[in-house]
């Protein structure tokens, strides 16, 4: 009885202290929202961005394009632990997916870019990724008549750094993957999920995964420490790299040590390996690790399987224009 009393008091206080109607609304609603199915973006700029995204001329030796690491057909990342840049150099952090990245509140694992435009600066100039400079990129693109015309059409301007960044960002914003089975379920189509998957979703919520992976992008709207309920990096055993330090590199504040942007779980089935260090090879391993270090729980195999089943329903559909490939100048 005492236990029930405590529960009652808890909810009683929670309810009475705030507007009841709002509370009901909030509790009735799901903490995850479906992806918007239509984004109104400038078609010309999107196509221009697509072309740039696929263009290896953006790298120093014309060998690497954005798409080299962000394979759009395979989850928007490279499927490796760490990316391989120009001259085969190995990067230090796992490639996040580009799909739905426009919905993230910051870019990069440590959130150092405010938006996609700012993000573009990173890989192009990173010596281990594309290793180029803006002057170089702009000069190369200026040699191309097709680009000249496309930029003129899209911006009525010459090719410049800002326009390149804008184009790529617009293209990336268009990379929304709507209509996943889970989104269909959220929209009211209850039969879209199997019983196991629904159980997985309930567990996802009940075990507390939802406290970080929520919102339209199921993550991507907050920072969290890697290893809240346990010392992940100590337990990992390998040396702590600069990438492992997280946001502290940017803010220089102790409380930002090991803090990362919570990644989106959309299309998670396609983006193995997982975590910033690519340490989890499978979805199940990732779930297990997360439960241990973030939630302080030890999950059974059945629990993990159901949650994994739920996560696999988050794979959406690629935008239609990607199937056609980048368009040139045809009207």
């Amino acid at each position, binding site marked *: 009885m*005492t*236990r029930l009393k*405590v*529960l009652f*008091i*808890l909810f009683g*206080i*929670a309810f009475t*202290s*705030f507007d009841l109607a*709002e*509370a009901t609304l*909030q*509790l009735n*609603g799901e*903490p*995850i*929202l479906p992806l918007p199915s239509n984004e109104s973006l400038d078609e010309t700029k999107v196509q221009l961005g697509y072309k740039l995204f696929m263009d290896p001329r953006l790298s120093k030796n014309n060998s690497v394009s954005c798409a080299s690491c962000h394979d759009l057909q395979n989850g928007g990342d490279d499927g490796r632990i760490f990316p391989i840049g120009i001259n085969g150099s190995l990067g230090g952090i796992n490639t996040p997916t580009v799909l739905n990245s426009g919905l993230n*509140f910051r870019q990069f694992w440590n959130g150092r870019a*405010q938006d996609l435009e700012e993000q573009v600066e990173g890989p192009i100039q990173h010596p281990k990724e594309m290793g180029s400079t803006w002057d170089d990129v702009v000069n190369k693109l200026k040699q191309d008549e097709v680009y000249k015309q496309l930029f003129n059409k899209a911006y009525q301007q010459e090719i410049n750094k800002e326009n390149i960044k804008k184009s790529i960002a617009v293209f990336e914003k268009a990379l929304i993957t709507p209509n996943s089975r889970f989104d269909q379920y959220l929209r009211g189509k209850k039969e879209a999920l199997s019983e196991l998957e629904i159980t997985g979703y309930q567990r996802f*919520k*009940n*075990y*507390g995964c*939802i*406290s*970080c992976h*929520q*919102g*339209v992008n199921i993550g991507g*709207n*907050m*920072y*969290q*420490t890697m290893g*809240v*309920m346990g010392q992940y990096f100590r337990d990992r055993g390998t040396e702590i790299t600069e990438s492992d330090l997280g946001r502290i590199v940017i*803010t220089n504040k102790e*409380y930002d040590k090991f*803090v990362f942007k919570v990644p989106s779980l959309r299309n998670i089935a396609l983006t193995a390996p997982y975590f910033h260090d690519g340490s989890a090879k499978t979805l199940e391993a990732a779930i297990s690790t997360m439960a241990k270090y*973030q*939630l*302080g*729980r*030890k999950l059974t195999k059945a629990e993990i399987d159901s949650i994994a089943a739920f996560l696999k329903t988050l794979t959406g559909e690629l935008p239609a224009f990607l199937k056609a490939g980048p368009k040139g100048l045809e009207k």
Partner: protein
Amino acid sequence: MKRYLILSSLGFLIFSLLFYFYTNSESRLAHKNEKMLKLFSHAEYVETALEKDLLKSRNFLLLNYDPIVGNEFEINQICKKLQETDFAQYLSVNDQLESLNQTYCSHLEKKLENIERFKSKNSIYKNSIYFIHQAVVDFAGSSKREKKIEIQIQRDVLVKTALTYSIVSTEESKKALINALKEVDHLIRKDPTASNLSVIKLHAEKILNTKETLDALTSNILEANSREYLNNIRETYFKSYSKAEAEAMFHRKILFLLCALFLGLIVYGITRLWKAASRLADANANLEKRVIERTHDLQKSQELVTQQQQTLASSAKMLALGEMAGGMAHEINTPLATIKIISEQIQDVLKEESVDKGFVQSATNDLIKTCDRIANIINGLRSFARTGKNDPLQSVKVSDVINETLVLCRERLYTNGIEMTINEIDSNLNFEVRKSEISQVLLNLITNASDAVMSLEKKWIRIEVTDLSKNIEIKVIDSGEGISQNLQNKLFQPFFTTKEIGKGTGLALSVALGIARNHNGILKFDPTQTNTTFILSLPKTQIKRETYAA
């Protein structure tokens, strides 16, 4: 006028352009101002929304941070916009505004940072509470698993204190939780098998740790009161803007007035020009007509004047004639009486038987002589009476003209007792004149002279004729003692007279002067003489000139 118009329109143009640019920039400023005010109110709105969303997510277990992220994004935008705002356009206080702005933005940034931390702490906290809840629910099952009663009790206490602390975070509940944790710690050290308990302990610790941070963060966020800074900016901004606006209003008024002034000057100038132009056109149209009319009028009045002059001249002559009429009657009566007496004598002689032929002969001779004399008088009279201006110029004897004139006035002079003397005139002395006209001049002069001397004791008139080789000079002198200086100038003016009303026309001398001039001669008063002297000087021969000057 033209220069004036150009200057005023130039002024108008310049000032209206100034006015245009001024109001244009002013409206742009007003537009910016509107944007700024919108930005401010939007900032306030978003901040309120952010705090509201923050409270919501703190107070409910299920949450979605998207709205907070949306608000964060908007606030970031506002920060960007504010930092890009050029307050210099709002004049004097831009430094103050900029520093206020910076303070506000840094506060916002701090706030956002705290919110970010809040989000991660909040999810940890919620997760732990969730876990403890589940532990409560799982009590029944787990207690069966847990054989040791001590562990069961400690677990219950831990869960209870953790929940209490999460709901009512007072010092007491905190102490209780810390104590419970100590007990559990103790227990675990004694019995490492209590693995279930250690997980609960971990979460309870998280609650203990994050709750305080979370509360601190929340109150920090809620009490950060960045809105105060916002209000500060808004007020300062508004003040400076209204000041600038007032200044602008003043300048606009001045510009507007100047514009209006120049416009008024232009309108005035144009009306003036318009009027002048229409008058000019009117005058042009009427000028010829008027000239013709005037010329016609002038001709008419000229004719009238000539006509009247002639009438006047002739009437003056007739007046002189009338005056002579009495004398005339006597002149004619005397020979008539002679004719009667001679005729009676002839009748007497014819009654006698023997007619003295010699006597009749001489008597009839006398008759004829007397008749000639009468004819002479009438001749003179007629030649005087006729208008002589169309007469041809004739060479006549000077003595004849003077004598014939004297015949006309001899009786008058005689009756008034005026002595008339004439100096000797060479009978061969001729001049080329219109006889009747010259005779009129002399008659006028003599009549004037006789009128003048009538009342004097010594009454005489003297006519002196001098041969000046080319000219003949005739002086009419009377016993009067000249004419006063001021009258001399008026002498020859028409209608000037010193005689009683009804006695003179005032034309005699002016007509006489006209005649003299027509003969290329001179008629003047000689002021140098003691006695009143008029001099008529005429050339002996006239240059052939048939036209008669009007």
